[in-house]
């Protein structure tokens, strides 16, 4: 679902006519779609009449009730801060590793297989190991996010340097650019598009990782609240948390889209 939203957001920038922004008609159509889904949900809940399938009104009430309780906002803040800290440290680490590897062919031979290893290994496989090494504290989800977002960022920088038009590299070299100038003035700025695409995917990935770590091992955060709701069979609360998680992901994605658009506009990558 989350990836569908991401693809939709990306396509809405590419498809002709869509870049002009959301017109009144498209806003109405989108609202209509939400209303139809909620109506269908309500009809189904009446038809099924089961405590395992509460209607939208009940879920909304639970959501308001949870929001009014201080605990939910605190747990939301905890999850959010874990995602942000993890992403920040991951991006920083990935950036440094990526730049160092691009600067040195010796380092590339040394580190590149390791980077690929971390990318292809399922992120969740690190959870048991990190529980044993780090323990059940804040650093468990944070370090998971660092590992799982840092290496892809490093990979994005390295692979971008390979994908740049060879003529651009040739011209830069003929104009006197040494390797470090090439990396900082040409490769990194041109890798931005690639890095941002990956970052949007990694943000959703980070949210999933933090949630799973909280659900499985830590007694704080939205994951923990979900585990509690599940143990009490509170389906309305489970749905309310799912909606909240979706919104959290949307906010993060929109924030990244905003930053990306501003930077890309400033850097001349957008035609309009």
């Amino acid at each position, binding site marked *: 679902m989350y990836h569908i939203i991401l693809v939709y957001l990306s396509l809405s920038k590419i498809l002709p006519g869509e870049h002009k922004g959301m017109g009144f008609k498209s806003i109405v159509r989108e609202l209509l779609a939400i209303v139809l889904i909620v109506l269908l949900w309500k009809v189904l809940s009446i038809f099924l009449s089961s405590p395992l399938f509460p209607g939208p009104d009940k879920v909304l009430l639970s959501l308001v009730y949870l929001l009014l309780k201080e605990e939910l906002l605190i747990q939301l803040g905890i999850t959010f801060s874990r995602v942000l800290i993890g992403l920040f440290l991951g991006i920083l680490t990935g950036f440094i590793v990526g730049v160092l590897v691009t600067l040195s062919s010796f380092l590339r031979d040394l580190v590149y297989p390791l980077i690929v290893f971390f990318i292809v290994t399922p992120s969740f496989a690190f959870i048991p190991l990190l529980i044993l090494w780090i323990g059940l504290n804040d650093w468990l989800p944070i370090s998971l996010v660092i590992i799982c977002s840092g290496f892809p960022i490093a990979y994005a920088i390295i692979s971008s340097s390979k994908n740049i038009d060879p003529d651009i590299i040739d*011209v830069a070299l003929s104009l006197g650019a*040494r390797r470090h100038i090439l990396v900082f003035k040409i490769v990194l700025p041109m890798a931005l598009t690639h890095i941002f695409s990956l970052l949007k995917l990694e943000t959703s990935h980070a949210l999933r990782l933090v949630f799973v770590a909280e659900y499985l091992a830590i007694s704080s955060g939205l994951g923990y609240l979900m585990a509690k709701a599940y143990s009490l069979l509170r389906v309305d609360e489970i749905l309310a948390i799912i909606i909240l998680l979706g919104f959290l992901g949307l906010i993060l994605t929109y924030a990244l889209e905003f930053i990306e658009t501003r930077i890309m506009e400033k850097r*001349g990558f957008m035609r309009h």
Partner: protein
Amino acid sequence: MVKIELVKISNFILKNVTLTIENGSIHVVIGPNGAGKTTLLKVVAGLIRYKGHIYFNGKKADNMPPWKRNIGYLPQTNALFPHMTVLENILFGLKNKGLSRNEAYGIAKYYMELLGISHLKDRYPLKLSGGEQKKVALARALAVEPQILLLDEPFTGLHYDYRVFIYNVIKKVHVERKPTIILVTHEIDEALKLGEKYTILVNGVNKYSGGLKGFFENANKYLPYINAYKCSIIGVDYENGLCRVKCRDFELIAPLTSNCSGKVIVSIPSDKIIIHRFSACYPKTNCISGVVEEIVNEHGLEQAVVKVGDTNVNVLAYGLRVGDRVMMKFPVKDIKIFCIS
């Protein structure tokens, strides 16, 4: 000014290329697609691996990195840095040379004015037309005031006005600063207007290097998309801007494009010649008949060699077969005349 000597240069495209480019000259490298023209430029720029040796003013330059070669390179694709404005693109090489901000800005301003792109200085490449991009790329290559200027197809895909403008800029820079220029092209017009020496490169092999006279003798043989003949002007119609030229085996009406008289070179691209298979050619001006002697396949493009007396005419094959008798129409507007002197 740099004299460039290439001695037995070989790599994945070039085969044993030996070539001398005199200092301060404009050396045109002409050849069909895939001949190795761009590769030759990259070898000179030190951007590609090769076997053999390069000498700059007699000194071996094989291990000299590109940034020390003092070159300006204009690639066919322009390769503007998309994340930099026009001004930043031009300043890039100047900053790398260690010039102060004011000094670099002064030089960039001069070249932007020379190329008429001052009003575009804050624009990004994505927001420029093809012709404007070419001008920026040329300004960037010229701004570093190189001793060697490498131009890869600088006129391809440009409107006539832009071609003339860029031609004039290159000429002006050459007169003022005398850099050694290697101009790669597959278009004969600009090659003849600008060139002082010529190299014909085919399939990575240097088929000819030298002056204009020998160039024409070899062009018909090695460049099937070009027809060039040594002819004489035998009549001039100043009122209509036309002249009559007599070549070895036929006469043509051609536009009077220059003030030369007597011996001239007449050229027409092979794809501009219209073929009539059943001797119907009307109006009869510039209609010449001949017999298909050979069909050559150059990179998937079939060309027919039509024999008219002792002269070969290259045309697009379009299903012609050896032995076919054809009528060829040389459209007046597509014929170019160059003074031999």
